[in-house]
């Protein structure tokens, strides 16, 4: 009998905000009240525990591996004459870069957060252009068998050209570092968008084409109502590859422009032998690239709901 009244109190404490908790637990709760309270908070706690376990199972393994890697790194580089800095050394040398991304000490002495934002703006221009141009051109190519046959081999060759190789040509063409940098990002990211869009358009099921024909949709209606939604999963695959590539091109692009981008920061740090700073910048680039990828994937999931599982 002693355990019975104690139970709701415990459970309320665990679940935080059970509705009856506010009224206060009466000193002598009736049997029915105790029974009514028992089930739902228990279920809630079970679910909470389940969620915790699930989160832990996805978060803990990478953390363990990371810790092991850092340890190995530390052991390998923690001796005099090591060519690369150890994690501990990076932590002390580049502490301000790690802990505060948004400091401003001077025109060229700013946090990596600011640099990333500048680079992101550049990527936004280049990738935005690549997305628009790539979808339109891909749609045109996907419509025509001959355009596909004629252009696809050329695109397959051009898409393998590394971003750095485009630098001299774009500099010669634009005569100015700003547009050249955007062009390098654009030209790196545009191919997968074109190719995937074209494949997506070619794979529009005959059923949808028939529906469009029976309804007598005009070309503009067909583009917006059938082509784009139907090819959306392919288009987003292209965009996802494209955003990855355009972020890859940022270092190459910013070798030209100088200024405050994260890509230029690495170039600059190399020239003044600040290896620790470079490592921190690499981690920033990696994380931002990961977030960009997930962002496009998420937008794609929302935009293609219904289409993908048809």
């Amino acid at each position: 009998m002693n355990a019975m009244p104690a139970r709701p109190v415990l459970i309320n404490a665990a679940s935080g905000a059970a509705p009856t908790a506010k009224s206060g637990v009466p000193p002598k709760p009736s049997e029915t009240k105790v029974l009514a309270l028992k089930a739902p908070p228990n279920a809630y706690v079970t679910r909470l525990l389940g969620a915790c376990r699930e989160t832990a199972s996805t978060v803990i393994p990478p953390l363990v591996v990371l810790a092991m890697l850092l340890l190995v790194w530390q052991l390998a580089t923690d001796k005099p004459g090591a060519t690369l800095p150890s994690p501990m050394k990076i932590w002390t040398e580049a502490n301000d870069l790690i802990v505060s991304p948004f400091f401003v000490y001077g025109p060229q002495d700013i946090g990596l957060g600011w640099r990333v934002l500048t680079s992101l703006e550049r990527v936004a221009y280049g990738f935005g252009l690549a997305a628009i141009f790539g979808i339109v051109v891909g749609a045109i190519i996907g419509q025509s068998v001959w355009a596909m046959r004629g252009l696809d081999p050329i695109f397959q060759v051009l898409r393998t050209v590394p971003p750095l190789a485009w630098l001299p040509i774009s500099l010669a063409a634009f005569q100015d570092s700003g547009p050249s940098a955007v062009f390098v990002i654009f030209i790196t990211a545009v191919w997968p968008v074109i190719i995937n869009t074209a494949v997506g358009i070619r794979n529009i099921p005959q059923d949808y084409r028939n529906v469009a024909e029976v309804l007598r949709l005009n070309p503009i209606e067909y583009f917006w109502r059938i082509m784009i939604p139907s090819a959306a999963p392919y288009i987003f695959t292209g965009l996802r590859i494209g955003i990855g590539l355009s972020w890859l091109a940022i270092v190459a692009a910013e070798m030209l422009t100088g200024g405050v981008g994260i890509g230029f920061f690495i170039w600059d740090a190399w020239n003044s032998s600040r290896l620790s700073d470079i490592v921190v910048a690499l981690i920033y680039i990696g994380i931002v690239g990961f977030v960009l990828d997930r962002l496009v994937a998420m937008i794609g999931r929302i935009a293609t709901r219904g289409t993908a599982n048809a």
Partner: protein
Amino acid sequence: MTTTEKPFLQIEGVHKTFRRGGTETEVLHDISLDIAEGEFVSIIGHSGCGKSTLLNLIAGLTRVTTGAVLLEDREVNDPGPERAVVFQNHSLLPWLTVYENVHIAVNKVFGRAKSRAERHDWTLHNLDLVQMAHAKDKRPAEISGGMKQRVGIARALAMEPKVLLMDEPFGALDALTRAHLQDSVMQIHARLGNTAIMITHDVDEAVLLSDRIVMMTNGPSARIGEVLDVDLPRPRKRLELVADTRYIHAREAVLKFLYERHRFVEAA
């Protein structure tokens, strides 16, 4: 078919040949058929006999090689909403809701003739007709196969077609759902009096729904083998017909055609 005026829909000496690479295959050979307004005609035959091709020719999705399809004395050259098609696999656009799938057709066909409110009402009216108004905000992936086909029918009906073309509309459905939908189609046909052409390979379905059954020989070079008049009074009730001698005779005639005289040959 005793009227002297021009038939509503005329199929006149239609041949259809498909060319692939260097080889030509004749799919349909000299098909001629007149269909009266308000008539419900089924086309039955073994798979591969070109019955879907015939429907596509009437729909205008495929062009005839020689001959002509005439609707109200005008030649059919391209697809259009006056010959709405209910496709075999529903062909709903998966990114649109049930309502939007019908509404896109209504907007396209009645964009000028009806006001926005009228178009909305007409969309709902057609969903009501197939008893799908309750699911109007769902997407095709969220509803069952039978429901999808109902929406497909609603979309076709919403175009107010002169001829409703159905390409094995219930082929992909289980038997119970199929029976439900057959009853729905009968009711709608009785109510609206549409001219309808249905492709099927189900003998019971053909007898139950049709005024006439067109039986096709096996392909290649399929022809119309026989045309059977089904003179069962409407409205027809599935259960009452089971013992009806006229029903049994009609059924027997179709079965005999399909399984005695034109048995399906795999090699063909």
